[in-house]
């Protein structure tokens, strides 16, 4: 468990940079895209490459189509000859590692990189993440696994596909306001319900798109932030967890690892009533159903009642706790960079720089999950930020 108050140094986000996310294709190699995001983050922080002590990369080699893919990403992220590492997972986990590096006092500044490109068939790549004996021969893949989970959740709690479609409608509407998002067109509930069934109950529009882009964050110790920045987001709480692998051995209808991660983060941040104490949240909506499950995993609603929060409008822009003002993953999905993009968006919110999608926010929550690897999005990370 996390130990509040034992860290050497509090950790702050002092710079955010991202590219404009697009659909697959384009002329830039994935590390060239990462370079752009890193440059933008450094510029945002008013720093140069020389000011960065450590660089953390993220993502999966198999998605990038080459082993040791960090050889390309780390230099693109400014890490040439620096003390750097790669977390092979969603970028929110690389953020967690960067957090620990600075919290220890060993490093003062860090750059964290999340990138997404589409150079290979993602579903097939996710299939090779499955063990070869029990799941892979069945053609299990990320979307099939997420669908199994959605199906289980919907059946247990009577969640209609109309309700799920309402999540998509909300996020796609909000995505229009995000200049960095890939998909910036609103769609209706009916359009969602008319889209092709991919893996029941998931229709095409219930699922995240495939987007290309990168996001980078510059972190620093609080002492350093005070000296170099005029505004920053402080990490008040952080947590991460991975649930068991075997699909039949876990409760499919709940995101158990998310609950663990959220508890760790809330504990550190001293949050008892998240619905009341959080001003905005960026949640990793890999599917429409997963956003509802995330509400419950975060403890904002009782199990099975996530839909009610949505129906009440509590999680829309005017609601008590706006969720995904950025449009979420349903509007823009840069692969393993998506969870880190949630952190970036949360940081922009609490520092008043979320142009076009700003919510009045002092405390924000960011959630990222591991969609590609593992049986069913086993891994979750949660970060709680406060603006200064």
């Amino acid at each position, binding site marked *: 468990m996390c130990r509040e108050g034992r860290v050497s140094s509090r950790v702050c986000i002092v710079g955010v940079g991202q590219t404009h996310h697009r659909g697959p294709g*384009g*002329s*830039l*190699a*994935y*590390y*060239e895209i990462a*370079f752009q995001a*890193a*440059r933008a983050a*450094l510029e945002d922080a008013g720093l*140069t*490459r020389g000011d960065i002590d450590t660089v953390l990369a993220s993502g999966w080699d*198999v998605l990038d*189509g080459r082993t040791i893919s960090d050889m390309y990403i780390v*230099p*693109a992220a*400014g890490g*040439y*000859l620096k003390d750097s590492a790669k977390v092979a997972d969603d970028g929110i986990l690389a953020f967690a590692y960067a957090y620990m590096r600075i919290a220890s006092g060993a490093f003062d500044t860090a750059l964290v990189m999340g990138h997404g*490109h589409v*150079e*290979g*068939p993602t579903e*097939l*790549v996710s299939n*090779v993440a499955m063990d*070869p*004996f029990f799941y*892979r021969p069945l053609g299990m893949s990320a979307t099939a696994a997420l669908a199994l989970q959605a199906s289980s959740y919907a059946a247990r709690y009577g969640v209609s596909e109309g309700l799920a479609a309402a999540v998509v409608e909300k996020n796609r509407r909000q995505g229009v306001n995000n200049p960095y998002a890939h998909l910036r067109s609103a769609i209706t509930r009916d359009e969602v319900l008319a889209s092709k069934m991919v893996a029941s109950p998931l229709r095409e529009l219930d699922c995240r798109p495939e987007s290309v882009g990168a996001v980078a964050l510059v972190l620093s110790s609080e002492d350093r932030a005070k000296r170099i920045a005029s505004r920053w987001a402080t990490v008040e709480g952080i947590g991460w967890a991975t649930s068991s692998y075997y699909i039949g051995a876990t409760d499919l209808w709940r995101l158990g690892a998310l609950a663990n991660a959220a508890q760790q983060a809330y504990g550190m941040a001293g949050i008892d009533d998240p619905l009341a104490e959080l001003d905005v949240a960026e949640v990793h909506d890999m599917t429409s159903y997963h956003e509802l499950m995330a509400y419950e995993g975060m403890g904002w609603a009782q199990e099975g009642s996530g839909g009610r929060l949505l129906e009440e409008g509590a999680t829309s822009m005017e609601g008590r706790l706006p969720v995904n003002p950025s449009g979420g993953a349903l509007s823009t999905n840069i692969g393993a960079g998506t969870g880190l993009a949630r952190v970036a968006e949360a940081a922009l919110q609490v520092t008043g720089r979320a142009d076009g999608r700003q919510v009045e926010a002092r405390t924000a929550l960011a959630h990222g999950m591991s969609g590609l690897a593992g049986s069913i999005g086993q891994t979750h990370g949660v970060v709680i930020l406060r603006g200064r």
Partner: protein
Amino acid sequence: MTSQQEEPLTIDGRWDIPYRHTAGQAATRFFRELKENKRIMGARCPSCRRVLVPPRSFCERCFVPTEEWVEVEDKGALISFTIVYAQFTSLPPPPYCIGLIKLDGADTGLMHYVGGVDLQDLEAAKKALSVGMRLQAVWRAEREGKISDIEYFRPA
């Protein structure tokens, strides 16, 4: 857990994942120049002034985009090399020689085959090849915009 008598079960696996890699702006131009103009281009960093071959769109040391294109010679010096005698699955049949070549005008080495030398006999090959020796590119008549447009580098 398994008893000593049972033969462990195994199953075969194969990853057959098709990829389409984006070469990026710098590589796209490099290969076009190879194909159309039979010349080798490098990218110069505006800050450290190194001419990078193969070219890349940013210099990782100075962390700035490279925008200046410089033609380098198709000859240069052999920095280091190895002669492969082993056959690895789906890699080229031996013997073949991989070398790092510092082309005249470039500040970094280009990896390519070294040929025009009998590699079958190691002792003969060791006499024919040496660090620092001068090499000349052997171009293919039909070029496709790939690194193989240069067939190999031969002793000059």
